[in-house]
Protein backbone atom coordinates (compact mmCIF):
# COMPACT_ATOMS: atom_id res chain seq x y z
CA UNK A 1 0.00 0.00 0.00
CA UNK A 2 1.26 3.46 -0.81
CA UNK A 3 2.36 5.02 2.45
CA UNK A 4 1.63 8.55 1.21
CA UNK A 5 -1.85 8.45 -0.27
CA UNK A 6 -3.07 5.03 0.89
CA UNK A 7 -4.00 3.53 -2.47
CA UNK A 8 -3.27 -0.14 -3.00
CA UNK A 9 -1.06 -1.55 -5.72
CA UNK A 10 1.13 0.34 -8.13
CA UNK A 11 1.75 0.21 -11.86
CA UNK A 12 5.23 0.02 -13.28
CA UNK A 13 5.60 3.35 -15.09
CA UNK A 14 8.23 1.92 -17.40
CA UNK A 15 5.91 -0.64 -18.98
CA UNK A 16 5.02 0.28 -22.55
CA UNK A 17 2.81 1.25 -24.26
CA UNK A 18 2.59 4.72 -22.82
CA UNK A 19 -0.28 5.68 -25.07
CA UNK A 20 -3.89 5.56 -23.95
CA UNK A 21 -6.55 5.51 -26.66
CA UNK A 22 -9.98 6.78 -25.73
CA UNK A 23 -11.23 6.92 -29.32
CA UNK A 24 -14.04 4.46 -28.75
CA UNK A 25 -17.73 5.17 -28.45
CA UNK A 26 -19.96 4.36 -25.45
CA UNK A 27 -21.25 0.81 -25.01
CA UNK A 28 -24.94 0.41 -24.51
CA UNK A 29 -26.33 -1.90 -21.89
CA UNK A 30 -29.82 -3.27 -21.65
CA UNK A 31 -31.45 -4.83 -18.69
CA UNK A 32 -34.89 -6.38 -18.41
CA UNK A 33 -37.27 -3.79 -16.99
CA UNK A 34 -40.86 -3.21 -15.94
CA UNK A 35 -43.49 -2.51 -18.59
CA UNK A 36 -45.29 0.28 -16.71
CA UNK A 37 -44.28 3.87 -17.34
CA UNK A 38 -42.79 5.59 -14.32
CA UNK A 39 -40.66 8.66 -13.63
CA UNK A 40 -37.21 8.45 -12.13
CA UNK A 41 -36.09 11.74 -10.60
CA UNK A 42 -32.36 12.34 -10.94
CA UNK A 43 -31.64 16.07 -10.49
CA UNK A 44 -28.11 15.24 -11.55
CA UNK A 45 -25.59 17.76 -12.79
CA UNK A 46 -24.15 16.38 -15.97
CA UNK A 47 -20.57 17.26 -15.15
CA UNK A 48 -20.80 15.70 -11.65
CA UNK A 49 -19.06 12.49 -12.69
CA UNK A 50 -16.14 14.34 -14.22
CA UNK A 51 -15.88 16.77 -11.31
CA UNK A 52 -15.89 13.94 -8.76
CA UNK A 53 -12.96 12.28 -10.54
CA UNK A 54 -11.25 15.68 -10.82
CA UNK A 55 -11.54 16.14 -7.05
CA UNK A 56 -10.03 12.71 -6.56
CA UNK A 57 -7.17 13.61 -8.91
CA UNK A 58 -6.60 16.88 -7.07
CA UNK A 59 -6.42 15.06 -3.73
CA UNK A 60 -4.09 12.48 -5.21
CA UNK A 61 -1.76 15.16 -6.59
CA UNK A 62 -1.65 16.97 -3.23
CA UNK A 63 -0.83 13.73 -1.41
CA UNK A 64 2.20 13.19 -3.62
CA UNK A 65 3.47 16.77 -3.75
CA UNK A 66 2.59 17.06 -7.42
CA UNK A 67 1.71 20.48 -8.87
CA UNK A 68 -0.35 19.80 -11.98
CA UNK A 69 -0.45 22.47 -14.70
CA UNK A 70 -3.11 22.33 -17.44
CA UNK A 71 -1.72 23.97 -20.63
CA UNK A 72 -4.44 25.29 -22.95
CA UNK A 73 -4.42 27.08 -26.27
CA UNK A 74 -5.47 27.06 -29.91
CA UNK A 75 -3.61 24.65 -32.17
CA UNK A 76 -0.37 26.25 -33.40
CA UNK A 77 0.31 28.51 -30.40
CA UNK A 78 3.67 26.84 -29.80
CA UNK A 79 2.60 24.88 -26.70
CA UNK A 80 4.73 21.82 -27.35
CA UNK A 81 7.86 23.77 -28.27
CA UNK A 82 7.42 25.95 -25.19
CA UNK A 83 6.91 22.88 -23.04
CA UNK A 84 10.09 21.19 -24.36
CA UNK A 85 12.08 24.39 -23.70
CA UNK A 86 10.55 24.69 -20.22
CA UNK A 87 11.44 21.09 -19.35
CA UNK A 88 15.06 21.62 -20.44
CA UNK A 89 15.21 24.78 -18.34
CA UNK A 90 13.71 23.08 -15.26
CA UNK A 91 16.05 20.09 -15.53
CA UNK A 92 19.03 22.45 -15.49
CA UNK A 93 17.92 24.95 -12.83
CA UNK A 94 15.96 22.76 -10.39
CA UNK A 95 17.08 19.15 -10.91
CA UNK A 96 15.50 18.12 -7.58
CA UNK A 97 11.98 18.76 -8.89
CA UNK A 98 10.49 15.68 -10.59
CA UNK A 99 8.97 16.25 -14.04
CA UNK A 100 6.32 14.39 -16.01
CA UNK A 101 3.93 15.12 -18.88
CA UNK A 102 0.50 13.98 -20.00
CA UNK A 103 0.14 14.79 -23.68
CA UNK A 104 -3.34 15.13 -25.24
CA UNK A 105 -4.08 15.01 -28.97
CA UNK A 106 -6.82 13.54 -31.11
CA UNK A 107 -4.38 11.24 -32.88
CA UNK A 108 -0.68 10.25 -33.06
CA UNK A 109 2.03 10.22 -30.43
CA UNK A 110 4.24 12.73 -32.25
CA UNK A 111 4.10 15.31 -29.47
CA UNK A 112 4.88 12.67 -26.84
CA UNK A 113 7.94 11.65 -28.88
CA UNK A 114 9.21 15.25 -28.82
CA UNK A 115 8.77 15.33 -25.03
CA UNK A 116 10.47 11.94 -24.68
CA UNK A 117 13.54 13.37 -26.40
CA UNK A 118 13.99 15.74 -23.45
CA UNK A 119 14.27 12.68 -21.19
CA UNK A 120 11.08 13.41 -19.27
CA UNK A 121 8.45 10.69 -18.58
CA UNK A 122 5.40 11.19 -20.76
CA UNK A 123 2.10 9.46 -21.46
CA UNK A 124 0.26 10.21 -24.70
CA UNK A 125 -3.54 10.28 -24.49
CA UNK A 126 -5.38 10.05 -27.81
CA UNK A 127 -8.91 11.36 -27.49
CA UNK A 128 -10.14 10.04 -30.86
CA UNK A 129 -13.20 12.13 -31.73
CA UNK A 130 -12.99 13.91 -28.37
CA UNK A 131 -12.01 17.57 -28.33
CA UNK A 132 -10.65 17.83 -24.79
CA UNK A 133 -9.05 15.81 -22.02
CA UNK A 134 -11.30 14.80 -19.11
CA UNK A 135 -10.62 13.83 -15.51
CA UNK A 136 -10.90 10.09 -16.14
CA UNK A 137 -8.20 10.25 -18.82
CA UNK A 138 -5.91 12.10 -16.44
CA UNK A 139 -6.57 9.56 -13.69
CA UNK A 140 -5.62 6.71 -16.04
CA UNK A 141 -2.56 8.51 -17.42
CA UNK A 142 -1.24 9.51 -14.00
CA UNK A 143 -1.58 5.88 -12.94
CA UNK A 144 0.86 4.97 -15.70
CA UNK A 145 3.31 7.73 -14.79
CA UNK A 146 3.43 7.50 -11.07
CA UNK A 147 5.10 4.91 -8.89
CA UNK A 148 3.58 4.85 -5.43
CA UNK A 149 6.43 4.71 -2.90
CA UNK A 150 6.46 1.71 -0.57
CA UNK A 151 8.79 3.75 1.63
CA UNK A 152 9.22 7.48 1.85
CA UNK A 153 12.31 7.81 -0.28
CA UNK A 154 11.13 11.17 -1.64
CA UNK A 155 11.41 12.98 1.67
CA UNK A 156 14.67 14.36 3.06
CA UNK A 157 14.56 14.70 6.86
CA UNK A 158 16.28 17.66 8.50
CA UNK A 159 19.42 17.09 10.57
CA UNK A 160 17.66 17.37 13.93
CA UNK A 161 13.96 16.51 13.76
CA UNK A 162 13.24 17.14 17.40
CA UNK A 163 14.37 20.77 17.33
CA UNK A 164 11.66 23.40 17.34
CA UNK A 165 13.65 25.37 14.78
CA UNK A 166 13.59 22.58 12.23
CA UNK A 167 9.83 22.17 12.66
CA UNK A 168 9.28 25.90 12.38
CA UNK A 169 11.37 26.05 9.21
CA UNK A 170 9.36 23.19 7.76
CA UNK A 171 6.08 24.86 8.53
CA UNK A 172 6.91 28.21 7.00
CA UNK A 173 8.93 27.31 3.92
CA UNK A 174 7.45 28.35 0.54
CA UNK A 175 5.36 25.67 -1.23
CA UNK A 176 7.89 24.38 -3.80
CA UNK A 177 6.46 21.18 -5.26
CA UNK A 178 8.28 17.82 -5.30
CA UNK A 179 7.01 17.29 -8.82
CA UNK A 180 5.62 19.26 -11.71
CA UNK A 181 3.09 17.48 -13.92
CA UNK A 182 2.38 19.26 -17.20
CA UNK A 183 -0.88 18.36 -18.90
CA UNK A 184 -0.78 19.53 -22.51
CA UNK A 185 -4.45 19.65 -23.45
CA UNK A 186 -5.86 19.19 -26.94
CA UNK A 187 -5.46 22.38 -28.99
CA UNK A 188 -8.88 23.99 -28.49
CA UNK A 189 -9.89 27.28 -26.88
CA UNK A 190 -13.51 26.28 -26.28
CA UNK A 191 -14.23 22.90 -24.68
CA UNK A 192 -11.30 22.31 -22.30
CA UNK A 193 -12.37 25.34 -20.25
CA UNK A 194 -15.40 23.38 -18.98
CA UNK A 195 -13.61 20.19 -17.98
CA UNK A 196 -11.88 20.16 -14.59
CA UNK A 197 -8.97 17.71 -14.60
CA UNK A 198 -7.94 18.18 -10.97
CA UNK A 199 -5.09 20.51 -11.92
CA UNK A 200 -3.61 23.17 -9.61
CA UNK A 201 -3.53 25.82 -12.34
CA UNK A 202 -4.85 26.44 -15.83
CA UNK A 203 -2.38 28.28 -18.08
CA UNK A 204 -3.65 29.69 -21.41
CA UNK A 205 -1.11 30.30 -24.15
CA UNK A 206 -1.73 32.92 -26.84
CA UNK A 207 0.84 33.56 -29.55
CA UNK A 208 1.49 36.93 -31.20
CA UNK A 209 0.53 35.46 -34.58
CA UNK A 210 -3.06 35.17 -33.33
CA UNK A 211 -5.56 38.02 -32.81
CA UNK A 212 -5.39 40.51 -29.92
CA UNK A 213 -9.13 40.12 -29.44
CA UNK A 214 -9.08 36.40 -28.76
CA UNK A 215 -9.79 36.85 -25.03
CA UNK A 216 -13.07 38.56 -25.94
CA UNK A 217 -13.98 35.90 -28.51
CA UNK A 218 -13.19 32.99 -26.17
CA UNK A 219 -14.08 34.45 -22.75
CA UNK A 220 -14.73 31.16 -20.90
CA UNK A 221 -11.14 30.03 -21.40
CA UNK A 222 -9.60 33.32 -20.27
CA UNK A 223 -11.93 33.53 -17.30
CA UNK A 224 -10.90 30.15 -15.86
CA UNK A 225 -7.16 30.59 -16.45
CA UNK A 226 -4.72 31.65 -13.71
CA UNK A 227 -1.93 32.70 -16.08
CA UNK A 228 -1.74 33.99 -19.65
CA UNK A 229 1.48 33.26 -21.51
CA UNK A 230 1.98 35.44 -24.59
CA UNK A 231 4.29 33.34 -26.78
CA UNK A 232 6.47 33.96 -29.84
CA UNK A 233 7.33 37.53 -28.76
CA UNK A 234 10.45 37.28 -30.92
CA UNK A 235 8.07 37.72 -33.88
CA UNK A 236 6.61 41.03 -32.63
CA UNK A 237 8.54 43.19 -35.14
CA UNK A 238 6.81 41.30 -38.00
CA UNK A 239 3.18 41.29 -36.84
CA UNK A 240 0.59 43.91 -35.88
CA UNK A 241 -0.15 42.23 -32.52
CA UNK A 242 0.04 44.66 -29.58
CA UNK A 243 0.53 42.78 -26.29
CA UNK A 244 -0.97 45.70 -24.33
CA UNK A 245 -4.28 45.35 -26.21
CA UNK A 246 -4.41 41.60 -25.69
CA UNK A 247 -3.64 41.98 -21.97
CA UNK A 248 -6.28 44.69 -21.59
CA UNK A 249 -8.85 42.46 -23.27
CA UNK A 250 -7.92 39.49 -21.11
CA UNK A 251 -8.06 41.52 -17.88
CA UNK A 252 -11.51 42.78 -18.82
CA UNK A 253 -12.64 39.14 -18.78
CA UNK A 254 -10.46 38.15 -15.79
CA UNK A 255 -9.03 41.02 -13.69
CA UNK A 256 -6.92 38.60 -11.60
CA UNK A 257 -5.14 36.98 -14.54
CA UNK A 258 -1.32 36.89 -14.29
CA UNK A 259 0.49 37.60 -17.57
CA UNK A 260 4.02 36.67 -18.73
CA UNK A 261 5.44 37.34 -22.21
CA UNK A 262 7.77 34.63 -23.49
CA UNK A 263 9.60 33.33 -26.52
CA UNK A 264 10.24 29.59 -26.67
CA UNK A 265 12.71 30.28 -29.49
CA UNK A 266 14.95 32.87 -27.80
CA UNK A 267 14.26 31.91 -24.16
CA UNK A 268 13.10 35.42 -23.24
CA UNK A 269 10.67 35.38 -20.31
CA UNK A 270 11.32 31.71 -19.47
CA UNK A 271 12.86 32.45 -16.07
CA UNK A 272 9.77 34.45 -15.04
CA UNK A 273 7.55 31.58 -16.23
CA UNK A 274 9.62 29.00 -14.31
CA UNK A 275 9.53 31.15 -11.16
CA UNK A 276 5.75 31.31 -11.46
CA UNK A 277 5.61 27.50 -11.80
CA UNK A 278 7.79 26.86 -8.75
CA UNK A 279 6.32 29.47 -6.45
CA UNK A 280 2.68 28.66 -7.23
CA UNK A 281 2.00 32.36 -6.79
CA UNK A 282 -1.34 33.44 -8.08
CA UNK A 283 -3.46 36.46 -7.31
CA UNK A 284 -6.63 34.66 -6.33
CA UNK A 285 -9.85 35.48 -4.57
CA UNK A 286 -10.16 34.46 -0.92
CA UNK A 287 -11.67 31.01 -1.61
CA UNK A 288 -8.75 29.92 -3.79
CA UNK A 289 -6.19 31.23 -1.29
CA UNK A 290 -7.99 29.31 1.41
CA UNK A 291 -7.99 26.21 -0.73
CA UNK A 292 -4.26 26.58 -1.44
CA UNK A 293 -3.63 27.03 2.26
CA UNK A 294 -5.64 23.92 3.15
CA UNK A 295 -3.72 21.90 0.55
CA UNK A 296 -0.44 23.17 1.98
CA UNK A 297 -1.47 22.29 5.55
CA UNK A 298 -2.62 18.84 4.53
CA UNK A 299 0.59 18.16 2.68
CA UNK A 300 2.76 19.36 5.55
CA UNK A 301 0.81 17.21 8.03
CA UNK A 302 1.42 14.14 5.88
CA UNK A 303 5.10 14.99 5.52
CA UNK A 304 5.42 15.48 9.27
CA UNK A 305 3.79 12.12 9.99
CA UNK A 306 6.09 10.50 7.48
CA UNK A 307 9.21 12.16 8.86
CA UNK A 308 8.28 11.05 12.37
CA UNK A 309 7.96 7.45 11.14
CA UNK A 310 11.35 7.76 9.45
CA UNK A 311 12.92 9.19 12.62
CA UNK A 312 11.48 6.43 14.80
CA UNK A 313 12.91 3.69 12.56
CA UNK A 314 16.33 5.30 12.08
CA UNK A 315 19.21 3.72 14.00
Amino acid at each position, binding site marked *: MCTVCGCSGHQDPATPPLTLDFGQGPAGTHLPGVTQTRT*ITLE*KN*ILDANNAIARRNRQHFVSHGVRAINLLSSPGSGKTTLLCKTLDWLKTTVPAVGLSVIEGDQQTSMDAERIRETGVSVVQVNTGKGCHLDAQMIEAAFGKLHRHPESDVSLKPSANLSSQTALAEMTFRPPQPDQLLFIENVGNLVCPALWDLGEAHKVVILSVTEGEDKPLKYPDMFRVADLLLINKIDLLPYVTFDPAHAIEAARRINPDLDVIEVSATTGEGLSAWVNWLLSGETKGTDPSDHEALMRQIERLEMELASLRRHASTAT
Partner: protein
Amino acid sequence: MHEVSLAEEILAIIERSQQEEPFTRVRTLRITIGDLSGVEQEALAFALTHMGPGTPIEGCELLFERVQGSGFCPACSKRVPLEFPQSPCIDCGHMPLEEILGTELRIRDLEVV
Protein backbone atom coordinates in the same frame (compact mmCIF):
# COMPACT_ATOMS: atom_id res chain seq x y z
CA MET B 1 -18.07 19.97 -30.20
CA HIS B 2 -18.31 19.18 -26.53
CA GLU B 3 -22.05 18.65 -26.75
CA VAL B 4 -21.11 15.16 -27.95
CA SER B 5 -19.05 14.60 -24.77
CA LEU B 6 -21.93 15.94 -22.68
CA ALA B 7 -24.38 13.63 -24.47
CA GLU B 8 -22.06 10.72 -23.62
CA GLU B 9 -22.08 11.80 -19.97
CA ILE B 10 -25.89 11.96 -20.04
CA LEU B 11 -26.07 8.47 -21.49
CA ALA B 12 -23.63 7.19 -18.84
CA ILE B 13 -25.77 8.71 -16.09
CA ILE B 14 -28.89 7.09 -17.54
CA GLU B 15 -27.19 3.69 -17.84
CA ARG B 16 -26.02 3.87 -14.21
CA SER B 17 -29.57 4.75 -13.20
CA GLN B 18 -30.79 1.77 -15.20
CA GLN B 19 -28.54 -0.52 -13.15
CA GLU B 20 -30.01 0.78 -9.90
CA GLU B 21 -33.67 0.74 -11.01
CA PRO B 22 -33.96 -1.48 -14.08
CA PHE B 23 -36.06 -0.31 -17.03
CA THR B 24 -36.25 -1.11 -20.74
CA ARG B 25 -36.08 2.29 -22.34
CA VAL B 26 -36.52 6.01 -21.76
CA ARG B 27 -39.72 7.57 -23.07
CA THR B 28 -39.03 11.19 -22.06
CA LEU B 29 -35.83 12.88 -20.88
CA ARG B 30 -36.09 16.24 -19.11
CA ILE B 31 -32.96 18.42 -19.05
CA THR B 32 -32.38 21.90 -17.63
CA ILE B 33 -30.00 24.12 -19.57
CA GLY B 34 -28.92 27.44 -18.09
CA ASP B 35 -28.42 30.24 -20.60
CA LEU B 36 -24.91 30.71 -19.19
CA SER B 37 -23.94 27.03 -19.21
CA GLY B 38 -22.09 27.36 -22.51
CA VAL B 39 -24.19 24.54 -23.95
CA GLU B 40 -25.95 24.81 -27.27
CA GLN B 41 -29.40 23.18 -26.95
CA GLU B 42 -29.74 22.29 -30.64
CA ALA B 43 -26.30 20.67 -30.70
CA LEU B 44 -27.06 18.68 -27.55
CA ALA B 45 -30.40 17.51 -28.98
CA PHE B 46 -28.65 16.52 -32.18
CA ALA B 47 -25.99 14.56 -30.30
CA LEU B 48 -28.52 12.76 -28.08
CA THR B 49 -30.71 11.86 -31.04
CA HIS B 50 -27.89 10.52 -33.12
CA MET B 51 -26.23 8.45 -30.42
CA GLY B 52 -29.62 7.01 -29.43
CA PRO B 53 -29.84 3.88 -31.64
CA GLY B 54 -28.94 0.78 -29.63
CA THR B 55 -29.13 2.63 -26.31
CA PRO B 56 -31.91 3.10 -23.72
CA ILE B 57 -32.53 6.63 -25.06
CA GLU B 58 -33.28 5.56 -28.61
CA GLY B 59 -36.34 7.40 -29.87
CA CYS B 60 -36.98 9.21 -26.59
CA GLU B 61 -38.59 12.62 -26.38
CA LEU B 62 -36.28 15.41 -25.24
CA LEU B 63 -37.74 18.16 -23.05
CA PHE B 64 -35.50 21.15 -22.40
CA GLU B 65 -36.16 23.65 -19.60
CA ARG B 66 -34.28 26.94 -19.80
CA VAL B 67 -32.96 29.03 -16.93
CA GLN B 68 -32.22 32.68 -17.70
CA GLY B 69 -28.79 34.05 -16.87
CA SER B 70 -28.69 36.65 -14.13
CA GLY B 71 -26.30 38.26 -11.69
CA PHE B 72 -26.47 40.53 -8.68
CA CYS B 73 -25.15 44.03 -9.31
CA PRO B 74 -23.57 45.43 -6.11
CA ALA B 75 -23.73 48.96 -7.49
CA CYS B 76 -27.48 48.85 -8.20
CA SER B 77 -28.20 46.44 -5.30
CA LYS B 78 -30.45 44.33 -7.49
CA ARG B 79 -30.44 41.27 -9.75
CA VAL B 80 -30.18 41.92 -13.49
CA PRO B 81 -30.36 39.67 -16.55
CA LEU B 82 -27.04 38.47 -18.05
CA GLU B 83 -26.23 37.40 -21.57
CA PHE B 84 -22.75 36.05 -20.67
CA PRO B 85 -21.17 35.33 -17.26
CA GLN B 86 -18.82 38.28 -17.72
CA SER B 87 -21.39 40.75 -19.11
CA PRO B 88 -21.64 44.10 -17.35
CA CYS B 89 -24.81 45.30 -15.62
CA ILE B 90 -27.30 46.39 -18.28
CA ASP B 91 -28.33 49.38 -16.19
CA CYS B 92 -25.12 50.85 -14.80
CA GLY B 93 -22.33 48.99 -16.63
CA HIS B 94 -20.64 47.67 -13.47
CA MET B 95 -18.70 44.43 -13.79
CA PRO B 96 -18.14 41.74 -12.76
CA LEU B 97 -21.49 40.82 -11.21
CA GLU B 98 -21.98 38.44 -8.27
CA GLU B 99 -24.00 35.31 -7.51
CA ILE B 100 -24.31 34.34 -11.16
CA LEU B 101 -27.32 32.10 -11.87
CA GLY B 102 -28.08 30.18 -15.03
CA THR B 103 -24.95 28.07 -15.40
CA GLU B 104 -26.57 24.72 -14.71
CA LEU B 105 -26.72 21.68 -16.96
CA ARG B 106 -28.83 19.07 -15.21
CA ILE B 107 -30.87 15.98 -15.91
CA ARG B 108 -34.17 16.55 -14.07
CA ASP B 109 -35.85 13.20 -14.53
CA LEU B 110 -36.66 10.38 -16.96
CA GLU B 111 -39.97 8.83 -17.84
CA VAL B 112 -39.15 5.16 -18.35
CA VAL B 113 -40.92 2.00 -19.41
